[in-house]
């Protein structure tokens, strides 16, 4: 099979899409023909962190002991197959870059197939900034191994010892006689080689990078600027119907009775009722919507008293016992040492993912096989959920992931894909489910509301004497203290993002750098409070209390680039600083803000952000992710908050739930610190963790007002100003 078709099939042309996806996996391998296939298992290579504690979802009919494979075809084209997905973060470009680099082949000879559960090896999902740091090494290893195979074949073919051969630009030649050469395609011809990576092959030194480490235009840019890029709701198959689903008015509500007769009077409407799932189906989505409005339904709505005001008291009252993450020294001893003590409580509201693409899926059932195109961050998880819901074996469900229109952790629940599959099964026709924005705000797995309580103290010389930290419902990511403090205790009440039974009034889940936004807001606000209390410049205070050279370098770099001059806060300049660690990456930022005291509004004028993410695979991509984090982070810092009362989500659209806009965006300057001693670390999330504390600290520096709750809305800013 000409691998050019893969790209066409996946993303570029809908006809190619249809043709391609009617093939079975067996057919795929038959048509794949000869060539060299390399399989890699992450576990073998100690990259298994990604799967820790998770059962392996075997790919039916194929060995389950590998996570990646690549193929070198007889035409010299290289295909990478991966369960990772493209949702804007750029692996469609960065993964081929890594592969091309190790394999010594031009970037434009590399194709990539992503997120197709019938074709790609099993993958846990695309989240946690893991694609580059966890999956990347495996892919590079596969490419390096492929090069070894090619060199072995070339030695035979050219009758030259391997040590005398050089691989470059998809060609292997004899360095003593450069005319004695053979292309990768020629070497792959007639071959049927399968190689399972046994040992970790030697990878290139990053200083030798020619393709990786250099900026490249996104490979998906052209299809995205011409409207040809297909997302789940853009897929069309013959005979498909669009669904609109009856929804309860509040979380926990149960359907009491329903009259669907008025909807059925509209021509072409098909009503499906499968337990609590009631939907109208029609050839046109807007007619389905009209029909849905005609359905009369009554729900039993449970009594609920929790709302967005009393939620924090509620969370503290139901909080589980603490899990001590780290402790050392003696807190009582620390309290004696402390010249000044500080006690604060920090609050975070529920925040929505709010990707511009709402959750969407199209399900088609043909015979005993279901195919579902879904906007998902974890196609294999979706496959298993769908299989369970419709009673199919997993190998009879195929999930295909087209481009995903933003995820941020919010596209891992796959409820819309399950709904589409259930409806397709019930209706006997392909069914598309695309959530409205209102459904999106109702069924999102929100970033959990959380509380952090910190007690701390500083000695007479400006050193931290003790640190006692309790986080409720945000989990441990980012809770670990990296400043030096001799007497300390860090504890998490309620580990993950899902909360515990009876804690959250609706679903919660991972949100870009889950937990860390909350923990970093609390820690870096509190560090600033201590610096101000000790009368020390906030950058100097941090450096005085840091022994971690990597963090100190990142902070100094941000300060230097900003042009920081020491002053104790509040200096009236409106400067704020914050540091943090996420996904193995160190970040520090300095911001300048202007506060309108009368209106309570905050305009961020400038943000300088320095980041040490180890080896940088795609500097342009990394910079863009930093800018994206800073811009998106303005929202949870300043406006984003889910309003709710008694199980009802009061925000139904963007009129009340405000996400960042063009005029909010500050001048953003980014610094990528060269660190080739550390393997590539996460890039999609780290910078966003700083934004709460960064702006809170800058507001304090501007006005003397201290913000203890996110988002820092005009009302909250005005209230804080009254206390100055």
């Amino acid at each position, binding site marked *: 099979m000409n691998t050019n078709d893969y790209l066409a099939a996946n993303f570029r042309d809908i006809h190619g899409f249809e043709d391609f996806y009617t093939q079975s996996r067996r057919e795929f391998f038959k048509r794949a023909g000869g060539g060299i296939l390399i399989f890699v298992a992450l576990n073998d290579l100690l990259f298994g962190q990604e799967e820790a504690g998770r059962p392996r979802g075997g790919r039916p009919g194929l060995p389950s002991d590998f996570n990646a494979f690549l193929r070198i075809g007889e035409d010299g084209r290289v295909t990478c197959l991966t369960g990772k997905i493209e949702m804007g973060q750029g692996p469609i470009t960065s993964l081929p870059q890594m592969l091309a680099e190790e394999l010594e082949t031009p970037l434009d000879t590399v194709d990539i197939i992503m997120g197709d559960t019938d074709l790609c090896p099993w993958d846990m999902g695309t989240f946690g900034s893991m694609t580059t740091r966890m999956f990347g090494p495996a892919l590079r290893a596969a490419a390096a191994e492929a090069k070894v195979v090619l060199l072995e074949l070339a030695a035979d073919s050219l009758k030259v010892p391997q040590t005398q051969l050089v691989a470059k630009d998809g060609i292997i030649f004899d360095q003593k006689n450069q005319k004695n050469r053979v292309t990768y395609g020629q070497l792959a011809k007639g071959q049927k080689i399968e190689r399972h990576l046994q040992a970790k092959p030697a990878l290139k030194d990053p200083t030798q990078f020619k393709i990786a480490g250099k900026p490249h235009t996104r490979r998906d840019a052209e299809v995205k600027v011409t409207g040809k890029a297909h997302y789940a709701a853009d897929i069309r*198959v*013959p005979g498909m119907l669009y669904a609109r689903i009856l929804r309860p008015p509040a979380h926990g509500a149960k359907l009491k009775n329903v009259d669907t007769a008025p909807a059925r009077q509209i021509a072409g409407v098909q009503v499906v009722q499968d337990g609590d799932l009631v939907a109208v189906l029609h050839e046109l989505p807007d007619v389905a919507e009209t029909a849905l409005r005609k359905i009369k339904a009554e729900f039993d709505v449970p009594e609920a008293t929790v709302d967005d005001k009393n939620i924090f008291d509620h969370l503290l009252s139901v909080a589980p016992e603490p899990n001590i993450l780290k402790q050392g020294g003696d807190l009582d001893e620390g309290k004696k040492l402390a010249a000044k003590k500080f006690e604060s409580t920090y609050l975070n509201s529920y925040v929505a993912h709010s990707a511009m693409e709402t959750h969407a899926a199209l399900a088609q059932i043909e015979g005993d096989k279901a195919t579902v195109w879904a906007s998902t961050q974890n196609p294999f998880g979706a496959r298993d959920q769908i299989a369970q819901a419709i009673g199919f074996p997993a190998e009879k469900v195929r999930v295909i992931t087209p481009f995903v229109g933003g995820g941020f952790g919010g596209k891992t629940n796959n409820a819309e894909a399950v709904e589409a599959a259930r409806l397709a099964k019930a209706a006997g026709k392909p069914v598309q489910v695309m959530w409205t924005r209102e459904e999106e705000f109702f069924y999102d797995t929100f970033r959990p509301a959380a509380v952090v309580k910190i007690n701390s103290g500083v000695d007479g010389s400006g050193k931290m004497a003790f640190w006692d930290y309790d986080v409720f419902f945000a989990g441990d990511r980012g809770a670990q203290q990296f400043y030096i403090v001799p007497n300390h205790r860090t504890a998490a009440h309620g580990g993950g993002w899902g909360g515990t039974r009876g804690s959250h009034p609706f679903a919660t889940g991972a949100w870009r750098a889950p937990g860390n936004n909350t923990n970093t807001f609390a820690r870096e606000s509190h560090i600033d409070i201590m610096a101000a209390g000790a009368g020390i410049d906030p950058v100097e205070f941090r450096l005085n209390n840091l022994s971690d050279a990597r963090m100190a370098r990142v902070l100094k770099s941000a300060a230097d680039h900003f042009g920081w001059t020491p002053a104790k806060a509040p200096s009236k300049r409106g400067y704020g600083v914050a540091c943090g660690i996420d996904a193995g990456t160190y970040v520090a930022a300095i911001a300048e803000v202007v506060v309108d005291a009368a209106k309570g509004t905050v305009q961020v004028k400038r943000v300088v952000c320095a980041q040490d993410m180890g080896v940088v695979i795609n500097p342009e991509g990394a910079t*863009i992710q930093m800018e994206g984090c800073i811009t998106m982070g303005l929202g949870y810092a300043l406006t984003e908050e889910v309003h709710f009362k008694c199980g009802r989500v009061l925000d139904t659209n963007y009129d009340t739930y405000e996400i*960042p806009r063009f005029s909010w965006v500050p001048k953003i300057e980014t610094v990528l610190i060269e660190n080739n001693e550390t393997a590539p670390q996460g890039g999609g999330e780290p910078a966003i963790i700083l934004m709460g504390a960064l702006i809170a600290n800058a507001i304090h520096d501007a006005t003397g007002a201290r913000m203890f709750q996110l988002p820092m809305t005009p009302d909250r800013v005005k209230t804080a100003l009254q206390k100055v």
Partner: protein
Amino acid sequence: MLWTTNSQASSTNSVLEPEDSMTNTISFKLNDKPVRLKVDGDRPLLWVLRTDLGLTGTKYGCGEGHCGSCTVLLNQRATRSCLLKIKDVMDKEVVTIEGLAKDGKLHPLQKAFMEHDGLQCGYCTPGMILTAVSLLKFNPQPTEQQINKGMEQNFCRCGAQVRIVQAIQAAAAEMKGAR
């Protein structure tokens, strides 16, 4: 449906004439070609484009005109297709993202969005580009502040705003005031 803009239109969507609603004949110009449709005139342009005409480059984002994902050009002006009834485009000129490139040549804004990475997930991109086309049409040399103002009602959740502004500035310079 008498005509579609490209071969991607699905064969699934025949002209639908619900018995209980008004069927109107709507003629307009779509991406430089005349179109005549027999449809309920009250249907939103967004869904007629995406289903009847198979033009899926125009995206649903909020359905209430807040976010700009569904932006098209109506007589050269950026307009929210989710709020626009199909009968209101009668005899007018509609351009969607699929119709922006001319003779296989990308519009300068499309090129600039590619070159300046004015996109990430790409979902808001068609609406962003068409809003920018409209902005430059009526203000060929906008200041940064005017660009922000003009783009303010188009949302990008990935945070590509910085690059989008750079792309618009680059395209404006390249177009040198040509509209």
